[in-house]
């Protein structure tokens, strides 16, 4: 310690201000040195330089403290917020340009809940006891929503995240934005108003199937609006199923507990709000496959029966009825074939089935079963009526394995 106070006027030493501050700094740094101190953080400022200025206080006194960026970057990040009680190690010194003494922090450990945390726990306990978090009061989210309401900032990353996930997973959807600030003093009230607006909109104008209340990550102060009691009560009363997604995975807010569903991030909220398109398409394809497989079975089983009925028509009725039967069958099959061709080609599925259907529609199939077709020689149109023929005419008959040419010896109708 290199200072002395001289007792007489003649020998007194007059310091300059700078000298005195330097003397004080040296006295503090060497006399007190490295110490640990415990206190509650308040008046916290994050300077653009990266330094963090705050006050450490207890019931009776306070101390200016600073944590320099060079130190913070070397250590694991510590979340210090106003209200946090911390244990800090550092050096007591004087900031000479201002003559202020301050504590330069090198190690900082939060050791307990501060005022904000205590208020949060108190509100959480209160609402829990009132039953606002009750699992049995939670609504199921709809399996497939058509319209989603999003309450968030129109400028934040949260909206962007929600949109990009919905676009990928389920683009068959409308997103209605109810903009609100999500931090600061006015945020709790604005969020409440946006929620009320969304509910009225859903009841009067366009039904919302689910409502997402969200914002991206931030400090505890930034997220504090979502710990508002009145907002929590409105959310509990909301008739639309709600998802709360505030901050990152590690952040829990009161709205998270009250909402029907909590999601760790805005993107995750979008994930739980909608099904996955790929899964839904898989479901459609699975059902379609069962329908096609069944149709194939039905055809195979019933075709013979149908043919028999067609034969019966032929045996006992005018030709017109037979033609009607055939026509109906052909039309049904043609329609089915059109559908089949589009679908099966699109799916690259079961080509053997396609071949089977084609085989059944082959005009030579009836010939294999014993029917024959009759023509005038050189004419490709089949002869349909005895009135087209006279005794002595030549006719050509096609069978499954070849053709015959013959002459007509007799002509008679069914009635004869």
């Amino acid at each position, binding site marked *: 310690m290199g200072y002395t106070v001289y007792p007489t006027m003649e020998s007194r030493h007059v310091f300059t201000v700078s000298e005195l501050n330097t003397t004080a700094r040296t006295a503090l740094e060497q006399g007190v040195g490295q110490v640990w101190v415990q206190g509650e953080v308040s008046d916290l400022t994050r300077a653009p330089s990266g330094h963090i200025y705050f006050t450490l206080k207890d019931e009776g006194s306070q101390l200016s403290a600073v944590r320099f960026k060079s130190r913070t970057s070397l250590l694991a990040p510590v979340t210090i917020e106003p209200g946090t009680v911390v244990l800090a190690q550092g050096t007591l010194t004087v900031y000479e340009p201002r003559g202020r003494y301050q504590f330069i922090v090198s190690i900082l450990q939060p050791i307990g809940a501060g005022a904000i945390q205590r208020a949060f726990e108190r509100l959480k306990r209160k609402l829990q006891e009132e039953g606002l978090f009750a699992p049995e009061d939670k609504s199921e989210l*709809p*399996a*497939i929503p*058509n319209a989603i*309401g*999003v309450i968030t900032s*129109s400028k934040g990353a949260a*909206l*962007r995240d929600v*949109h990009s996930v*919905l*676009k990928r997973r*389920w*683009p*068959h*959807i*409308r*997103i*209605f*934005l*109810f*903009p609100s600030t999500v931090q600061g003093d006015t945020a709790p009230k604005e969020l409440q108003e946006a929620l009320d*607006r*969304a509910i*009225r*909109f859903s009841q*009067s*104008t*366009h039904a919302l199937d689910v409502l997402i209340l969200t914002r991206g990550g931030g400090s505890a102060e930034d997220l504090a609006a979502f710990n508002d009691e009145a907002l929590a009560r409105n959310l509990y009363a909301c008739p639309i199923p709600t998802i709360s997604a505030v901050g990152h995975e590690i952040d829990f807010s009161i709205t998270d507990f009250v909402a029907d569903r909590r999601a760790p991030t805005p993107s995750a909220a979008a994930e739980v709000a909608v099904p996955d*398109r790929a899964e*839904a*398409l898989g*479901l*459609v*394809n699975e*059902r*379609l496959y*069962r*329908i*096609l497989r*069944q*149709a194939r079975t*039905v055809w195979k089983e*019933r075709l013979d*029966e*149908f043919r028999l009925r067609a034969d019966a028509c032929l045996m006992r009725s005018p030709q017109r009825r037979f033609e009607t039967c055939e026509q109906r069958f052909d039309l*049904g099959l043609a*329609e*089915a074939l059109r*559908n089949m061709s*589009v*679908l099966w080609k699109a799916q690259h599925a079961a080509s053997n089935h396609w071949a089977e259907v084609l085989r059944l529609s082959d005009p030579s199939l009836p010939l294999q079963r014993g029917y024959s077709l009759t023509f005038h020689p050189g004419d490709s149109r089949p002869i349909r009526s005895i009135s087209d023929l006279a005794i002595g005419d030549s006719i050509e008959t096609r069978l499954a394995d070849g053709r015959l040419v013959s002459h007509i010896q007799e002509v008679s109708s069914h009635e004869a």
Partner: protein
Amino acid sequence: MKLEQELKQLEDIAKKLESDELPLDEAITLFESGVKLATSIRTALNEAKIRIETVVENSRDSFTIEPFDLE
């Protein structure tokens, strides 16, 4: 019709075809409506109608829906 109901209906058609002894006409009708339904669901699922709209309340319960541009 809502997609959810359409998916349910498709499941019903598949089940009916699988379980019932249906007359051929009815089976074909069911098959056709199933195929049409599946096609329309797939079209809907691939249709990207996603968009963000901002809801503005002019006066109580009177809303205007405005397109919202993310950019």
